């Protein structure tokens, strides 16, 4: 008697899911969405402060994964790095477009953390809170000048030149501070979060 069984995709690694996505397997996309959809959506909300716009961005990001998943290789870095790079770039593009249109204004960076996340499980919330606390701690340890350039670029979508103009720093100094800030963050967090990331 011929019987067909399928493995549950939830047990697959990210790269295995991507391989299946390359074969037009929607179940794999569904699993990947369940795994990272909340983080992508959260990043978009964090930057845009607009849940509706963040839905559009999240949809675009996962459709991009659906279309380009087969092109991903390990040489491009960690999968999460690749995924969040897509998410961040798409979100920043949207933010800059809105800034150009001047149709909407974003609040200061601190206001974003007030967003409710009622659908998060207590366990996830605890983990997130822990990770968030660690990144906040690492950010707090950065010199204020370096923290500023990271916040203005990654979360506010300003370019290097715009940051230089806004802060009155030379462009070269802005570039150097960006690099030093990222290196310090990686050094501070990789030891504590590396296993989870």
């Amino acid at each position: 008697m011929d019987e067909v069984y399928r493995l549950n995709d939830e047990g697959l690694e990210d790269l295995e899911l991507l391989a299946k996505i390359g074969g037009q397997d929607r179940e794999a996309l569904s699993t990947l969405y369940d795994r990272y959809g909340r983080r992508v959506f959260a990043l978009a909300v964090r930057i845009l402060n607009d849940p509706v716009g963040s839905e559009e961005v999240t949809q675009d990001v996962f459709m991009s994964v659906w279309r380009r998943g087969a092109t991903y290789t390990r040489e491009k870095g960690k999968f999460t790095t690749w995924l969040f790079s897509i998410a961040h770039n798409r979100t920043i593009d949207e933010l800059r477009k809105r800034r150009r249109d001047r149709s909407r204004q974003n609040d200061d960076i601190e206001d974003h953390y007030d967003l409710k996340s009622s659908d998060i499980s207590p366990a996830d919330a605890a983990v997130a809170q822990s990770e968030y606390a660690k990144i906040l701690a690492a950010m707090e340890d950065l010199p204020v000048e370096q923290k500023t350039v990271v916040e203005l670029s990654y979360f506010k979508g300003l370019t290097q030149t715009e940051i230089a103009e806004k802060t009155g720093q030379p462009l070269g100094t802005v570039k150097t501070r960006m690099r030093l800030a990222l290196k310090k963050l990686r050094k501070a967090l990789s030891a504590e979060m590396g296993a989870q990331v």
Partner: protein
Amino acid sequence: MTDSRDTTASNDDMDPRFENLAGYVLGALENDNERDLVEALIESDSEAHAEFSALAEAADMLAMAVPPVAPPAHLKTAIMEMAGKESDPTPVRSTAEIAPVPSPTPLWPAILRSGFATSAVAAVLVIVVAGVLGYQNNQLGNEIESLRAELTAESAVVSSIQNELLATVSESENKVASMKTEMETMETEFGDTTEMVVHQEEMVSELAIVNAALQQALADQSWLNYVAMREEYQVASWLKSTQPNPAKTVVDASGLIAIRYVGNEAVFQAHGLAQPQPSYAYTLWLLGNGAPQPVAQFEVSEIGAATVPFLLPAPFQLYSSVAVTQERVDGVGNDPTGTMVLSADTN
């Protein structure tokens, strides 16, 4: 623990090639051109690739550290539906749908194993195929007939259009021929009119000459009056034209000679003379007192008038006649040889 001091100045040992890597990772480059340059560097330079990986992991942590927020449930539905539209139409069953399903027993092999069944199926197939072909043939025939009818109708329309065009062309040609005739008539009339205008211009010109001559005659009359009043001159001779004027468009040439009472001064006046031939000039002769004596050679004005003072070689009454001839300008002979235009007796 991390060092909270900003060591930008002291640690500014960044390889210039890598200056935009952090900006690339943070999405802070200015434009696509800068991004393309960085991506090309990462692909071609292993050190740049390693630096990029390290920086990208840090940015990765920034994203991972944002507290997760559950998106609305309809978002996943929308994404899956969109993916379904773009994917292979074959549906993918979810894990929940996966349940062992017994395979149905195939019926076709049993049927095909029966020879009768095979023949029956073949016969049915032949009938079906023939029917289909017959139906298709009939359909094609109908379509061809329909197309023929349409073609006939189109041909009639084309023929009608051709006839209309021919009629239009013929009518246009007739109009062109008629216009040509009218133009030729107008050209002829214009030629006649032009000729008339030229003739009238010539008449005007001749009348102008006559008018000028009459004006001159009036002037001569005035001169005679003057001479008479002064009583120092008297008209000694009237000269008349010796040649008829066939055109009669100008007054006949004439002349007079007035002499002073005292002394030998005299004046010859003429009008109505034509312009002399080239290299010739008019010459006034006194005749009848021995050899002919040329006393003056003169030119005439545009209207043929001349007033010429001269000295009498002898008392005027000793001469029997006077005359005006055309003689060569480069030398006058002893006798008049040219055409005589004016003459008169002195008595």
